[in-house]
Structure formats: structure tokens, C-alpha cells
């Protein structure tokens, strides 16, 4: 291996690492606030990327129908409860957000020639479809069992993961998709050609991390989420609704997932089931941070990205084996350092 190959591999590793870092942050956030291990994070990545790809090929993305169905279910549940309590206005509000919005979005997408829209608008529309699924998913799947043991929540996540993979196959088909790059220039740094997409990934990741940092440090909602993460019951006694915290967390996680998908779609071919492995690598990083520390998770993500890049050079067939076997010593170290004297659930 010479210097230039090492540089190219590092570039690959850092680009992927940035995406893993974003996913790891979302996973840490979701776990800290709701105790849910968000296995289906990877599916949000794939849904983001493939929804954009569908739009660009001029097809109405099927994910919008999933949004409509989920919204209808939420409306039936929450709207029904509100009506029973005689809160007509609240019921109307629930229906407006959960049913009116998806239907309006579907109508708009049906009416527009989406493939001729500028890329930025397509990206926004993609996020508008995929991101609301996060809070709806929390409402439908997790809220009824929010106090269940972590392991039950984990099995629910795994179940949703396989359901979403199946739906992904139905929506997007078995073919892989790759979207065109956001912009067509590249930067020459010595022997290294840095593509525009790499820069996009790095810049957006950095902006997002800074944004989240500000959100958690400066805003009331951010602080409410942090409070919930530190002490769920205490936060609830202070008037922070765990339901709101859960929905907000899932909103952020879905946003990060879908945006990551949009960002990497021009770099890697995304299949309906690609998300799982991407999400799991985010997990390896999150676990390096003990599912608790954001900076450590980000460092872990870069390490995973680099390891993967170099492993694919030396032993490409064994790339996944290497990445996933290395998680075990990390898990072990984590589990030994975070001392559990009390019983586990």
C-alpha cells in the first residue's frame, strides 16, 4: 500500500465515518431518552435515499402512502380518545396533522412533475415524507408499552426493522438505486481528489452536529430531552411529558436517518435492505460511546469507517466479519466498565 491508496481509503473511511457518526448520535439520543434500541434507524436511511431516487425517476414515492396509513391509524387512536373526552378541537387538530398533512402531501406530489423540480426541493419533499414517520411510529408502536423492559422494546425494534425491510422491498423493488451527485466539482489536494459529495457529507454532518449541540444546550425542548434522558421520572414530575419527549426524539432520529440516506445516495448504491448494515455500523459506534457519550460515539464512528475502508482493501471478502467481530471486545470493555450491581431487567 502506498501513500495515495492510504489517502483514498482514509477519505472513504472518513466519509462513511461521518454518516455513522450521525446515526450513532441519533441512536444514543433515542436510547437515552426512550430506552429504545433503534435498530430500524438503517431503514430510515434507505427510505430517505430511495424516496429521493423514486422522485428523480418521476414516480410518486410509495412511502407517501405508508405515511397516509400511519397517519390514519394515529388519527383513529388519538382522535378517538380526544372525541371520547369531548375535546372536539383537539380531535380536529390531531386529524389535521396526522391525516390532512399526509393527504395534502400526497396530492401535491401527485400534481407536481417531481422529477423536474430542483434537487433542493426534492430533498425537502423527501424529508417531508419520511421524517413524520418517526413520531408516528413512536405513537403507534412504542407509546403503548413505553414502560416495558429494555429487552421487550428491543424485540419490538427488531420486529419493526424486518417489517420495514419487507415494506421497502414492496415500495422500491429489489433493484439498487444511486442518485446523481449534488454538485459536479472536485477538489484537488495533492495526490487526492476530493469529490463534491464527500464535502457535502462532511459539511452537512458537521453542521448537524453543531446544530444538535446548540439545540440541546440552548433550547427549552433540548433541555427537556436531556432532563428526560438523565431522570425519566424526575423530568415527568417537572411537567415534561414522556410522550412528547419520545415523539420529539423519534422525529430527530428519523430526520437524521433520512438526511443521511439522501447524503450517501450519490456515493453508494442503496438497496431496500442496505440500511440494516449501515445502521448496525452506527450501532458499533454508539456502543463504543456506551450508548451514552456523544463525543465518544462520534470518535467511534470515524474508527469504524476507517477500519471498514482499510479492511475492504486488505481482505474485502471478510470486511463485514472484521467490523462485526471487533464489536465484541468493545461490548466487553463497555459492559465491564459500566458496572451493573443491580439486577438487569
Amino acid at each position, binding site marked *: 500500500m502506498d501513500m495515495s491508496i492510504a489517502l483514498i481509503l482514509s477519505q472513504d473511511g472518513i466519509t462513511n465515518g461521518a454518516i455513522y457518526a450521525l446515526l450513532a448520535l441519533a441512536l444514543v439520543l433515542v436510547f437515552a431518552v426512550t430506552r429504545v*434500541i433503534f435498530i430500524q434507524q438503517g431503514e430510515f436511511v434507505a427510505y430517505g435515499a430511495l424516496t429521493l431516487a423514486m422522485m428523480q425517476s418521476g414516480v410518486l414515492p410509495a412511502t407517501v402512502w405508508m405515511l397516509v396509513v400511519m397517519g390514519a391509524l394515529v388519527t383513529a387512536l388519538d382522535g378517538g380518545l380526544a372525541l371520547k373526552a369531548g375535546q372536539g378541537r383537539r380531535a380536529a387538530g390531531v386529524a389535521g396533522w396526522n391525516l390532512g398533512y399526509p393527504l395534502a402531501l400526497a396530492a401535491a406530489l401527485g400534481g407536481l412533475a417531481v422529477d423536474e423540480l430542483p434537487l433542493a426541493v426534492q430533498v425537502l419533499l423527501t424529508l417531508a415524507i419520511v421524517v413524520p414517520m418517526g413520531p408516528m411510529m413512536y405513537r403507534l*408502536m412504542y407509546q*403503548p*408499552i413505553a414502560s*416495558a423492559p*429494555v*429487552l*421487550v422494546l*428491543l*424485540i*419490538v425494534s*427488531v*420486529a*419493526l*426493522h*424486518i*417489517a*420495514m*425491510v*419487507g*415494506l421497502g*422491498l*414492496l415500495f422500491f*423493488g*429489489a433493484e439498487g438505486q444511486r442518485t446523481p451527485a449534488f454538485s459536479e466539482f472536485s477538489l484537488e489536494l495533492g495526490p487526492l481528489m476530493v469529490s463534491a459529495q464527500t464535502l457535502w457529507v462532511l459539511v452537512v454532518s458537521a453542521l448537524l452536529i453543531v446544530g444538535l449541540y446548540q439545540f440541546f444546550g440552548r433550547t427549552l425542548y433540548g433541555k427537556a430531552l436531556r432532563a428526560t434522558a438523565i431522570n425519566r421520572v424526575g423530568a415527568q414530575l417537572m411537567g415534561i411529558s414522556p410522550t412528547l419527549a419520545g415523539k420529539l426524539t423519534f422525529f430527530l432520529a428519523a430526520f437524521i436517518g433520512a438526511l443521511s440516506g439522501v447524503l450517501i445516495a450519490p456515493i453508494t448504491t442503496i438497496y431496500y435492505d442496505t440500511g440494516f448494515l449501515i445502521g*448496525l455500523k452506527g*450501532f*458499533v459506534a454508539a*456502543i463504543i460511546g456506551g*450508548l451514552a457519550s456523544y463525543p465518544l460515539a462520534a470518535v467511534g464512528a470515524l474508527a469504524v469507517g476507517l477500519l471498514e475502508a482499510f479492511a475492504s482493501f486488505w481482505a474485502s*471478502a*471478510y470486511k*463485514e*466479519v472484521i467490523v*462485526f*467481530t471487533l*464489536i*465484541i471486545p468493545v*461490548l*466487553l470493555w*463497555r*459492559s*465491564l466498565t*459500566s458496572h*451493573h*450491581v*443491580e*439486577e*438487569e*431487567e
Partner: protein
Amino acid sequence: MRADRLVLGAFLALLLLVPAILSPYYVTLLNYIGLYAMVALGLVLLTGVGGLTSFGQAAFVGLGAYTTAALTTATDLPAWLAWAGTSPWLTLVVGLLLTAVVAVLIGSLTLKLSGHFLPLGTIAWGISLYFLFGTMESLGGHTGISGIPAIGLLGWTLDEGGEIYYLIWAFLLVAMLTTHNLLDSREGRAIRALKGGRIMAEAMGVDTSRSRMVIFVIAALLACASGWLYAHMQRFVNPTPFGVHIGIEYLFMAVVGGAGYVWGAIVGAGVITVLKQWLQNWLPSLLGATGSFETIVFGLLMVLVLHRAREGLWPILKKLVPVRAVRKTIDADAEPLPRRTLPKAGELILEAKDVTRRFGGLIANNNMSLEVRAGEILALIGPNGAGKSTMFNQISGVDTPTSGEVRFLGKPVAGHDSREIARMGMSRTFQHVRLLPTMSVLENVAIGAHLRSDKGVLSSAWRLDRAEEARILKEAARQIERVGLAEHMYEEAGSLALGQQRILEIARALCADPCLLLLDEPAAGLRLKEKEALGELLRKLRSEGMATLIVEHDMDFVMSLVDRVVVMEFGQKIAEGLPDEIQQNPAVLEAYLGGVE
């Protein structure tokens, strides 16, 4: 004839007749159900009973299948291994040995993982093994290995679905029988204590790490046997059925069927397999596309089960069959368990010297010293938060003192396992009751006798432990009667009132035949009559030579019972003496009632 045996007999007769009645299609379906149920049975033991969630079982199935496939089809085995390829039965042995070794290796790495880290770990090694099957050239890569011979048995060649059917179900039924036996035994109680009772079990002398390893290896071996049968039924293997997604499916089977129940494995495997078959025929034509869309239904079904019936389908089905659980019988003629010789009255049993325990900046125990002698009851009292329970934990090995010395029967024990200390003859109860709420009072108390008996996993599985088991149950029943819970012996421990649960803990501690009893607030929540009875019991134990250390807030109870009192406040000893002296001690009065102005 007992109703449960009748139902079981009917089920077995039906199984026997299946190949004669049903078409080959259904026989094949039942073959798969049997194979999957065997893996799900391992998960019942591992996840449902032991609380260890694994998504990686499919990898062990693969290990069994690939071992036999590679050995029975290889033409150029090295001489030292050539014997193994000659018969599938030999490759079964090789596969089981190999799986045991791999499971012990993986287990010793990952079973230390706590809580949710473990299932994530199983996903990791599940994926790794799957990719290994697919990338290793010698295993045929992604195309796999074909031409695997059929199994021969006593001159028959089991090369048709209707023939291997009997072998598969024989394997499964034997596995279910042995698992059932195992759970209903000394080792089984230790395994059932893993979920939610590890600290208690360790304090009763159960090596919980070993129990975790035992069920992990058993689950892996069941998966391996299923893989061996699968390879010889299909006569072909490739990596697809051994991926992590199939591992997830196995877990679904266990959870849907009822992860806590042996029969749940068959129910779950049956429901998921039939549903899968049906959905695979039906969904693609409905949706107008090809692919494995059944995962959508499975995923949502799974969420529904976890929302509505977290125990799975078996408990619901069980209600439909009019079979009542059979009560355990106590064999009055069973030989009593051996007892230890108690030290002579007055002999020094426990000595704590300058024990200090810091939690960061907080000093929970500061230079605490106390002594307990045989035939004596020492009370440790003090206001809430004085550090009494922390002191208990230092003495009993649940926690390790920052500095200082604890000597039990003359030997230093600070920092030793609570298990080891329990073996030396110390037994305790907990301030926050620790018992297994769904187990009967009798079985909860029987855990106390763990160290007085030694039958292991194999004897339990094959029912060679019955004589010892009868002795254990007799001893447990004796202790239950002694503490006055006889009428509740067969009830679920969780259904008792809190005061009675504390008494149950005393019976469990006594079942260990200790020479030192540590009781943490035994009288809390008891009514007056019950307190009097408890006092009587403790006096009687004292007269037999038992040393007792008791933490209690009820001063009437303490002062009329104990020989000496040690008073703690803010982690330190502020007074020590006879009950009458303590009640006059100004420092004690100040601690309890505030300063005398």
C-alpha cells in the same frame, strides 16, 4: 389416568399417525416445524427462562449443518479426520462437540455483557458467522454444498420426508422432555433465578455465571442438532438459512409461542412456519410482486403480540385444555439433608473490624466494628440512611469494603464472592424482598438448599436426581412449616403479603442450614401475632446455637429479643451495649429524637 397424561398421549398418538394420514406436503411442513421448534426450545430456555436474548441462534444451526455437510461430502479428508466422514452419526458427534467448543468460546466472551449489550453482541457474532459461511471457499461459498447423504438408522435409509419425520420428532420430544426435567430440578431453579434474581441466587450459593453458560451451551447444542437434521433432510446447504434474519425469526417463534414455556416452542414454530408458508403463497400474488413480504406481517404480528399478550400464545391455549398443574408431593420418608455442626455457644462467629465503604465522596460506613457470637442475637439499629444495609452488604460479600476487615469463622471474607461466603455458612435476607414471584413458595425456599445438594445438569435432565430432589423439597417444606407459612406452600410467592414474603426469605435462609443468619428488617410489615411468632422462632434458633445479626426498626421487637445492640448513625458506630443501656444512652436518644435542649 391423569388428564394431563391423557392429553399428552393423544398428542403423541396423533404425531405417530401423521405420515400415514397426511399428504407429503404437510409432512414436510411438520418436518420444518419440528426442526424450528428445536431451535426455539433452546431460546425458551435461554431467553424466556434465563432472560438472555439471542438473535444469533441461526449461526449455531449453520454450524451443525455445515459440519456434517463438509465432513460427509469431502473426498480428501486428512487421515486423522477420515473416520468422521463415514457416517452422519459420527458427524453429529463432531458437530455437537465443535458447537460446544464454539459456544463456550463465544459465551465466555459475550455472556459477561449485561442487559441490552448481550443481544447486540449476539447480532454481531451472528452476522460474523454467517459471512464466514458465505466466504469460506472450502464451504462452497454462496452456492453451498450439495450431495449430502441421507441418514441411515438400523439398516433403513431415511431419505424420504415421511421417514426422517420420525427422527426429527423423536429428537424434538427427547429435547423437550429433558428440558422440562431440567427446569424442574435443583439446576432448573438456579436457571430460573437468572431472570431477576441473580443477587439473591448468588447469596444462596448459586454460580449464576455458570448457569448462564449452561443454558447458552444447551441452546447452541439444540440448534446444532436441528442443523444436522436439516442438512440431511435437505441433502444440501447454503448460507441463506443461517443468517441473522432467520435468527430473528427463531426468536419470534419463541416469543409468539410463549418464551417461558417448553410447549411454547412447538406452538410458536408451528404458527410462524404455517403462516410463513401461507403468506409466501398468498402475498406476492396479492401485492403483484415477488419477494419475502411475509416479514411485514411477521414484524407487525410480533409487535401486536408484545403489546397484547407478552407471555405468548401458550398460556392462552393452555386455558382451553382442561388440565390442571400437578402439585409437587412432599415425600415424608425422604432422608433429611446433612446438617453442619454448629459452633459452640459463645464462640466468635463474625468479626468486622474498621470496615469503611465509600461511594465517591459519600462515606456509607466509617470504621465500623462489630462482633457476633454463636447463640447470640445482635441488633444493628440506627435511623434511616445510617448505613445498616450497606454494612450487611459488606459482610455478606454483595459489596466489597473500601478498607477494613471482615472475619467469618476466623477466616477473612471481605471481597470474597457472596457465593463462597454462603458456602461457609452465612445466610441472609434482603431489605427489599428478593424472590421469584411466579415460582411457588416451596420452590423459592428450595433455592436455599442449593449448596446442600450437588446433582448437576445431566442427572436432572435424565431424572437421576429424584432421591436428592425429594430430600430438598422435604427440607424446604420443613422450614416453611417452621416459619408458619405451611398453608401457602403451593401458592405463587408473588401473591403473598409483603410481611409473609419477608418470612419466606427467612425460611429460604434457614434452608441453607447456616450458622450465621443476617436478617434485614424481618419484622417490617408483620402484624402483632406474626411478630410474636417470629420472635419465638428467633429465640428458638438462638437456643440451638445460631448466631443472628438483625437490622430492625421496631424497637419493642428488638429490645425484647436481642442480647446486644450496636447503634449506627451517619455510617459510624455511636453506641454498643445491652438493650437496657442503649435505651438510656444520651447519644442514641439524640440520634433518634434530636438534641435534648
